[in-house]
């Protein structure tokens, strides 16, 4: 499917803050089998210099995937979500996410292209605290598969 390349460079308004809960980090860590005590026990996290339990590296996708709905639900861009597959994913951390963080996402469309009838959309989501401290930049590339004739 064809996506409008004029969307490259578009920045979306900041999302409502996401409060990172200690139990959410524990639940996510358990779901991915991350047993290190720093994901579960605040004392173990503090021993590593963090204020509360530390999220596993891919945890921010919970926040950014929700934030990216701004883009995939944008009727002007016209992504058919039933045809979306995940292409690439990258996280560049200023610091790990910890329980108690209140995170705000700003979405930017970095690239839009079409090849072989498939659409490709690369977004960068800058995740920072409500106080403006950068935490992690998250890139996601999705492929919108062409419709079969």
């Amino acid at each position, binding site marked *: 499917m064809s996506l409008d390349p004029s969307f490259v460079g578009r920045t979306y308004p900041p999302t409502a803050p996401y409060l990172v809960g200690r139990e959410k980090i524990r*639940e*996510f860590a*358990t*779901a*991915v*089998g*991350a047993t*290190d005590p*720093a*994901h579960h026990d605040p004392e173990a996290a503090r021993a*590593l210099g*963090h204020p509360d339990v*530390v999220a*596993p*590296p*891919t945890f921010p*996708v*919970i926040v950014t*995937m*929700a934030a990216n709905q701004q883009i995939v639900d944008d009727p002007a861009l016209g992504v058919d979500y*039933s045809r979306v*597959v*995940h*292409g*690439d*994913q*990258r*996280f*560049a*951390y200023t610091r*790990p996410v910890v329980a108690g963080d209140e995170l705000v996402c700003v979405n930017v469309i970095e690239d839009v292209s079409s090849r072989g009838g498939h659409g490709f959309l690369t977004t960068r989501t800058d995740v920072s605290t409500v106080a403006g401290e950068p935490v992690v930049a998250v*890139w996601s590339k999705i492929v919108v598969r062409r419709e079969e004739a």
Partner: protein
Amino acid sequence: MELPVQTFRVTRADLVRYAGASGDFNPIHWSDRTATGVGLPGVIAHGMFTMALVGRAVAGWAGAPDAVVDFGVRFTRPVVVPDTDEGTEIEVAAVVKEVTEAGLTRLDITATCRGEKVLSQARALIRTPR
């Protein structure tokens, strides 16, 4: 330098638990009917679940839960998870590409399922283990 291979078993129960914890309820990760309806061989793992397992492997090699500075992958092949007690297995291997003077280590990572690569361009930058 090659790092020790780490192996992760993946069952349907893991996918259900990951769906709940992550909020990704796409039915191709739990419904064979939906998965085969869109041309997949069957239920597949969330790409982000595979990436999370690779993240565990990276943390294991780093020897710390908070050592990852940069982490990226490309999803190239779906991980099909049969509805059996055994499910399937993902093998994660890595080589050290570079150790910088700034105290960082660059890893090139390989993830395979049933002998086939499921990721490409999988790389992590970690704080060098002490």
